């Protein structure tokens, strides 16, 4: 019973910190603005020619990815076990991509 109470209290605590509908709308607006900036940059030849273009796009994409995972998927507010499962898998997946790119000479040191 105490275990159930603990789990219930944990759930109530997590729910308490979930964003409100208006905060979700602000997050959607932020995601839209980042997407608009990405597409706008794609049409500016001077920016595309810059060596910072690709890294900047990847940073913006990673920011959108993190925002959706943290706030819409509630990983920021949910159990630590879920964070471990997801980030662990994501790290392995990203390491796989990088290793394959090195293996096939798409990246080099």
């Amino acid at each position, binding site marked *: 019973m105490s275990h159930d109470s603990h789990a219930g209290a944990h759930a109530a605590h997590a729910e308490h910190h979930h964003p409100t509908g208006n905060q979700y709308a602000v997050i959607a607006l932020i995601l839209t603005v980042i997407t608009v900036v990405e597409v706008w940059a794609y049409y500016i030849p001077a920016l595309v020619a810059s060596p910072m273009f690709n890294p900047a796009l990847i940073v913006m994409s990673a920011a959108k990815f993190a925002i959706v995972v943290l706030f819409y998927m509630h990983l920021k507010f949910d159990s630590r076990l879920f964070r471990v499962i997801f980030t662990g898998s994501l790290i392995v997946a990203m390491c796989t991509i990088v290793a394959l790119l090195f293996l096939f000479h*798409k990246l080099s040191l």
Partner: protein
Amino acid sequence: MTAQTAAAHAQGHAHGHDAHDAHEHHHYTTTGLDNRKVAVWTFIGSECMLFASLISTYLIYKGKSVIGPFPHTEWTDPAGKVYKAILDIPVTSASTFVLLMSSFAMVLALQAVQLKGKPLAPTAGWWERLQRSSQFWLLATALLGTVFLGFQSYEFTSFVHEGLTIKTNLFGSTFFTLTGFHGAHVTVGVLWLMSLLWIDRSRGLAGKNDELLVDICALYWHFVDVVWIAIFTLIYLIK
């Protein structure tokens, strides 16, 4: 059966969902978490691996197609026919926006189910009232997902008409495989959403157990969205 559970069952005759909530305690594990949610997060972790393999295949073969059409540059075939850069960024940007908004609708659908049974202030405006309609947000999410699939069908069809199929070159093979797998995931998500909408219309979605049903679907849907966020940048925007 404990006294509290028995009491919950007695009340359940009057309030079906309360009894349902009492049952949900049986799903908890030693971690204090529902094992179905742990399973979904583990599934999402395995999906990361799947899409990582598809994305790395695309990146490894990027720029290695011997013949066109190409994604970002023009190509002239030996007969002198000119093929323009095949990716249509404005159309894909619109479909990306649609998928982002579907995630927004999905999170509001979950919130609407969580808020069921909680009192609404008499002064609440239309936005507060709309936030309580799980059927509206589930339908909106499914419709936006369907619009995204419509954009993808249009894109695939126009590519085939412009001479790019899955067999044309390395770009075609890796592009159609990656985006096709993603589209299949969106299709599964839309069917899942429609089934939740059907349940909501037939008996209503309320209580902790139903919240979990919507939460699991929402996790899958948001994952499909974040995969597209990566695809949009890596395939469409980076030249």
